[in-house]
């Protein structure tokens, strides 16, 4: 135990004792506080972590406090491996840089690295990229108004958002800049003070303050008076008083962005391996030497840890655990496209006091025209705990009903959740490991992580340079990636052309989203092949409509089996063990038609 700074330790211990946790062991390594011990509930674990982080001079917290009587669940190792006719992966023995984790951040870093003459390998444990928080978030391109000044989050967010227009154009990813309305209502200060005081503050004092916040991050916000506000959004609650419009706020398709980044990296020579889980990190003489995976070993002198919610576990493998990730679940409700025109700007109701752990969620929409509400924020012990409860659905619906009071609950077509990956300091943690040269932690990524990904990647590359990686630019780097044509959005003329070129584009497979067989086959044969039903969905939207794959499910499964050269029983929903069908003695009948 390292006791170089006993004063901080004593202060923390004293506070813990006051909170009636006298038996928590506190120690310090550099500016990282380590906590050991056991308590009765997960909430207490989280409270202790936050509390320790409040003291001056504490850089991060490694919180090893356990909940009594609970043994953390270990995932059983998957036995079967992803190999198909078109996806026969074999790991290389060596690489210059290994990126661990195929979320939006990992993929963005891989793409940035693919600008240089380097052997870049990205490893993802799931059967597709973007399977964690990158596919389940609010999809907003923030400007940074929600972040505290002085944070890395704010700095990188403000740097990134103006990059999005070019980035999404290069990568052919749907992007929609429709702006955010921050709305003050009669309930902004509810309960805390007489209503006339609250209304006065909301109408006259808060808006200029919000406008200033927007200007700082480079946006051009403006105050929108009640009349104009209700003209812009006629379905908005009549309790609205005034709004501030932030025209810089946009929406992006988060999973298609992640996939596009990975594909562009692949097109430029990077290698992406799915179903490849890092189980160990090789370190010698305080230098990283490579990684061990379920598919074998790769030697590398530089390793980027972009493992999201698992980044503290991967850091621990390298002996570089300088922080703890405490998973925080967010639930989002998705509504039928029928409601598309009900609201057209992102809307966030301002409330005081603010919840410190979420920017509060918003009434949002996807780039495809579904309204969605959320997310919520709940601390949970399980990094895979993506269940959604009845209470959470009701909570999210009620919360945002205050913005749109007449919105019908019956138009829900899906609910889902994502797990944020915050540290106890609640900021991005992007640093070289203190004691392992060549190992870089890109961790603590939470909102606005999607927005900030391009700047995060730049920062990660700067750190790699400092760590001694030589980067020589490729002459033939191509930043442009062409996506799969979205048949539904093509003009009549283009639709005709597309079908003439490939008649499969004339066959609609997903009736709700009008996705054609051509799009699905193209997704399966894209630079990063779609090998699961969900991977097809994230690339083409087949199955993401109101019937939730009732109609196209059987057809997509058959197309996958045909194109991948596997049997239907081997078709997976989202990864090994998620079989759609079971082996059976039932004699096969018919089934010539996909």
């Amino acid at each position, binding site marked *: 135990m390292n006791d170089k700074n006993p004063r901080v330790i004593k202060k923390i211990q004293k506070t813990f004792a006051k909170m009636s946790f006298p038996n928590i062991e506190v120690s310090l390594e550099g500016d990282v506080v380590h906590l050991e011990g056991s308590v009765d509930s997960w909430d207490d674990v989280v409270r202790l972590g936050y509390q320790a982080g409040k003291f001056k001079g504490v850089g991060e917290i490694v919180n090893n406090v356990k909940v009594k009587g609970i043994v953390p669940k270990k995932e059983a190792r998957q036995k079967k491996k992803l190999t198909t006719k078109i996806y026969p992966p074999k790991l290389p023995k060596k690489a210059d840089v290994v990126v661990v984790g195929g979320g939006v951040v990992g993929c963005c870093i891989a793409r940035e690295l693919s600008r240089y003459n380097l052997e870049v390998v990205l490893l993802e444990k799931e059967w597709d990229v973007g399977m964690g928080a990158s596919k389940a978030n609010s999809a907003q391109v923030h400007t940074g108004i929600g972040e505290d000044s002085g944070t890395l989050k704010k700095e990188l967010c403000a740097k990134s958002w103006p990059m999005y227009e070019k980035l999404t154009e290069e990568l052919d990813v749907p992007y929609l800049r429709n702006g955010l309305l921050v709305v003050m209502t009669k309930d902004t200060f509810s309960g805390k003070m007489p209503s006339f005081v609250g209304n006065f503050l909301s109408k006259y004092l808060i808006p200029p303050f919000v406008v200033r916040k927007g200007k700082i991050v480079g946006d051009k916000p403006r105050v929108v008076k009640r009349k104009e506000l209700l003209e812009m959004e006629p379905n908005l609650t009549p309790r609205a008083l005034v709004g501030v419009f932030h025209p810089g706020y946009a929406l992006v398709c988060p999973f298609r962005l992640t996939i596009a980044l990975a594909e562009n990296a692949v097109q430029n020579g990077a290698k992406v391996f799915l179903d490849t889980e890092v189980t160990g990190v090789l370190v010698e003489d305080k230098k990283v030497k490579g990684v061990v995976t379920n598919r074998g070993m790769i030697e590398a002198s530089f390793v980027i840890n972009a493992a999201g919610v698992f980044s503290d576990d991967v850091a621990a493998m390298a002996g570089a655990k300088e922080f703890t990730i405490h998973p925080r679940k967010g639930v989002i409700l998705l509504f039928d496209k029928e409601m598309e025109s009900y609201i057209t700007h992102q809307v966030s109701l301002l409330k005081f006091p603010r919840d410190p752990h979420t920017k509060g969620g918003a009434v949002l929409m996807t780039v495809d025209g579904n309204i969605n509400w959320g997310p919520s924020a709940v601390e949970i012990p399980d990094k895979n705990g993506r269940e959604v409860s009845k209470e959470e659905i009701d909570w999210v619906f009620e919360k945002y009903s205050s913005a749109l009071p007449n919105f019908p609950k019956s138009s829900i077509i899906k*609910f889902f959740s994502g797990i944020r990956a915050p540290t106890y300091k609640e900021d991005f943690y992007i640093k070289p490991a203190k004691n392992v040269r060549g190992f870089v932690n890109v961790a603590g990524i939470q909102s606005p992580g999607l927005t900030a990904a391009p700047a995060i990647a730049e920062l990660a590359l700067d750190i790699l340079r400092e760590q001694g990686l030589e980067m020589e630019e490729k002459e033939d780097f191509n930043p442009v990636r062409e996506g799969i044509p979205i048949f539904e959005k093509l003009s009549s003329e283009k639709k005709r052309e597309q079908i003439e070129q490939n008649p499969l584009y004339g066959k609609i497979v997903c009736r709700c989203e009008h996705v054609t067989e051509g799009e699905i086959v193209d997704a399966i044969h894209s630079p990063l092949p779609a090998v699961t039903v969900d991977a097809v969905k994230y690339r083409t939207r087949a199955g993401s409509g109101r019937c939730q794959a009732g109609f196209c499910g059987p057809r997509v499964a058959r197309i996958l089996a045909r194109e991948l050269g596997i049997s239907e029983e081997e078709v997976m929903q989202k990864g090994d063990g998620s079989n*759609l069908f079971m082996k059976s003695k039932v004699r096969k009948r*018919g089934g010539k038609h996909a």
Partner: protein
Amino acid sequence: MHEVDVVVIGGGPAGMAAAISAYESGIEDVWLLERDYWVGGILPQCIHDGFGNFVFGEMLTGSEYAQRYINKLRETGVKVRPNTMVLKIDQNREITAVNPSDGLIEVKAKTIILSMGCRERTRYQVLIPGSRPAGIYTAGVIQRYINIEGLMPGKKVVILGSGDVGMIMARRLTLEGAKVKGVYEITKTPGGLTRNVVQCLEDYNIPLHLSHTITNITGRYRVEGVTVAEVDSELRPIKETERYVPCDTVVLSVGLIPENELSKMAGVEIEEKTKGPTVDEQMQTSVPGIFACGNVVNVYDLVDDVSESAERAGKGVAASIGGKLERRKTPIRVKTGRNVNYIVPQIIRNKNLNESTRFYFRVKETEKSVGVVVSANGDKLLEKRERIVRPPEMVRINVPPDTLDKIKGDELTIDVEERKK
């Protein structure tokens, strides 16, 4: 742009019957657009019997029932276009559709018959919480997997909802070697026909748990189990009664919704209760020239009724094109009376009709020994006795043309009345 007299959208039982009926009523220029690779709709996968009792006077399987219509269709000059998906309809009856061989098709139709059928409600629409693994299917989907594709969706199955398809699939899964652990129904009474409770569940010793629901689904990659609980009188789960049932598959039979996205695009008025278009006695919707029939209008219990409504629509378009309809001065609104939930059709627009108008309706509550009374302006026009009426079983009553013509006002009411013993 093609110009066609009648375009029928959807080639299920309704679409086939409507196209045949229009053709046989003298309209030769009929197109039938079907998005699947062949017509028949859901019928080919319904390999159980119980179809055709009213139309053919015999018990057929769904596939046989469909084949009879396919054979009839072949004798007509109806142009069937399979693999054809309609992307757009507008109020001027201009249709955009697509298929692999013709590419983009644009048609201006004199009349349109909407017969897109219905779709199944999903786990999300009934808000069943939990995780989102593989292994959660709607009953119609596994029916297709097993009966058409020859694929087995699971081995240990829990079924939610006792609608007809759910019960039929409980039996089908059992016959294919799966273990059906139970059928859970949130209401106090089975959701489907009594004959299915007996023939599909009781005969196979499959337990039916009434007043129960699923409160959670667990499993990360594939379903591992569900939590079930009893519900109170307001259908809220009772926490203390929760128990865990291990299974690898959840099958949902939690209701059907008429598929009216195209209807709405065309500006057709939709009924709150039926979720289908408001139709008149010819099955014409609120948009002139656009007709609707079958499950797109209202989810019928029996395919025979679907065919009947379609035949009416076929005759309706023929009469409409031939200018044979005589409008009433004021249309008659059909009102729901005592213990009536909804009625189809909802409006009578024409007079001097050739045949009786058949009203279909559902009751709100089960009642024994009742009289179905049709009245207007307080005058009883017609009464029919029913031994028992139940919400899952539609009640039919035929009203002759001259009875309708007698009505002076703009209202007609159907009541279910207690019969004094």
